[in-house]
């Protein structure tokens, strides 16, 4: 199941499948946006865990590659993940 990162609940994990290009942008903006996320370690195939969600549609905090990142909600909506719910397996 592929869903946006912003749909994960606190404590849930997922594996990044792709990053959608920013809407309404030229190539330049889009390159910068994706590149910025990837430079911070959000590359396809990476596992991430949501550690905090700010209220009122605020940013989320994720744990990725051993460190924590705060991510604006708009950005989180463009990161697609395959959900990994531990309880589904057990």
């Amino acid at each position, binding site marked *: 199941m592929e869903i946006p990162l912003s749909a994960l609940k606190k404590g849930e994990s997922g594996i990044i499948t*792709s990053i959608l290009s*920013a809407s*309404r*942008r030229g190539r*330049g*903006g889009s*390159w*910068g*946006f*994706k*590149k*910025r*996320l*990837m*430079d*911070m*370690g959000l*590359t*396809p*195939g*990476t596992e991430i865990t949501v550690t*905090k*969600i*700010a*209220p*009122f*549609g*605020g*940013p989320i*905090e994720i744990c990725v*590659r*051993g*460190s*924590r*990142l*705060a*991510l*604006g*909600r*708009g*950005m989180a909506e463009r990161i697609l993940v395959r959900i990994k719910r531990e309880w589904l397996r057990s």
Partner: protein
Amino acid sequence: MVKKLTIALAGNANVGKSVIFNQLTGLHQHIGNWPGKTVEKAEGTLHFRGYEIDVIDLPGIYSLSTFSLEELISREYIALERPDLVINVVDASVLERNLFFTLQLIELGAPMVIALNQVDVAERKGIKVDHEKLSRLLGVPVVPTIAIRGLGIYRLLEVAVETIEKGEVRPRQILYGREVEERIEKLARLVAKVGFKYPARWTAIKLLEGDREVEEAIRKLDPTIISIKEKLAREIEEIHGHPCSTVITSERYEVANRIAEEVQQITPIAKPSLSERLDALTSHRLLGYPIMVVTLLAIFYSIFAFGDYVSTILSDFLYGFEPLFKSVLGEGLLEELIWGGIIEGLISGVTIALPYIVPFYFLLYVLEDSGYLSRIAFLMDVVMHKIGLHGKAFIPVMLAYGCNVPACLGCRIMETERERLLAGFVVTLIPCAATTVVILGLVGKFVGIEWALLLYIVDLAIVFALGRAAFKSLPGEPIGLLMEMHDYKLPHMKTVVNQTWFRLSEFIKIAFPFIVLSSLVIKSIELVGLLEPVSTLLSLVTVNWLGLRPEMGVSLVFGILRKELTLIMLATLLKTTDFGSVLTPVQMMVFALVTMLYIPCIATIAACVKEFGFKKAFFITVFEIAFAILAGGVAFRLLSLLNIP
């Protein structure tokens, strides 16, 4: 003959780079700007084993692509200025992310040594790093350090100098997957032929990553390379099913991940540490907000209380010299100009800068160094988003309530020019400490504290509306929040004190000449007897449109100097401090509102010119004057309808 060496410090943000910089250079340092850029350049010198070593602290970054100015500056410096050595400061507790940057430095071909910092923090998190193995894998000397306690710094320096003396550091190049590697080599051979200023292999990698700046430069040298690059990038994309830049970044992170896993041993820690519990509490979705409000109010209150106290003592002390001064120079035009113009200007600068700005900066850096500022940015992101900015912009806004000058300079933390300008505009509309003095001293005292509060609420609404309008009218898309959340840690006092000191000297350099100069100009106008005609001219607006008394126009002119002068001049011109007896509540309200909005003071204008250029600063100033007059007139008419006690 002293031999000179240059060493650059490079690394991610918040890994203890500035602490190492301070440990190495002590007080022999100065902070300026990179030529033509608004990014800070910290430079210092030290003497070691007969060498005079120049140490450059490069900005903290995560990558060497051209997303931000900082990244561009760092890579240009390393590749083109060619320091004798780069010390890559690496946070042992977040090894993988840091190694991603290290690998890029290796690609850039820089001779380097790694300072494996914060090994104590890593150990507390249950991470043990085998630094010898790391050194073998990368082919780079690695020195473990705990910079905050000064441990390993001497060894780092020894290894750095030995490495330079040996002169042959051969870091192991990381190899990408075969299909990528083949294409990099092919492209690198072509680049090598045209003689580009950066290393060929690095250039080839950056081209495949889609780096705009490199692409433009190569296109000028040989456009066929670009078309070949595009073909190669498409081939890689077909093989992997992801864009070429994604493939390269992923593979580089893959290597970083493999190395990190090989050198670190992780034993999970069962009990959450104090830092983690503090983090959970301060960024809690409900509790985080009241904690933030209380913390900020406490900070502002203590700065105001402290500042007011010290400011009074200082100004009493400095004005104590007035009789002495007058007895030496005698009464006359010269005395008036020198004392009333220059010296009073200086005194006002000193009595504002020292008591308010010093503690303000100090506490701000304590908050930043400890990690609380990023929690505030996290909590406030959703609010700032409404005016097209992200959470980090709340930091200059917060600063602005103290003083607009550091706030303007603080807009540098925003990533792009557009964001910097937008934040700068919003910041100049925020009532600073001096404006607060006027509002409380006039409206709070003579109309009622609830009316003063109303003014603040109205101002906040106006800031919000104007910020949103500016955001909608500026071309370009807003960028979202993307920020590493570091663990809480004890701030390093020496670094905090150093930062405060540099900020203060920057403030003095920017603001003082303007404060003194304009003080002199206004004094001259007064002495020449131009105040009366100016007042008459202004009364067209102040009396007819704003419903104020003619004297109030003149005091508004004085406010350009420093905003609290509006109140002081008003008392002088009206010949009373009991404003309630001579002014109507509506006049006081309108006057306070105009003071809040009408112009960034002369020092703020100077800071704007420095940060955004003359044209933009001029536009902001003119706009705010016009807007304040408009808003004041509207307020006058609305308030007149109400019956204020």
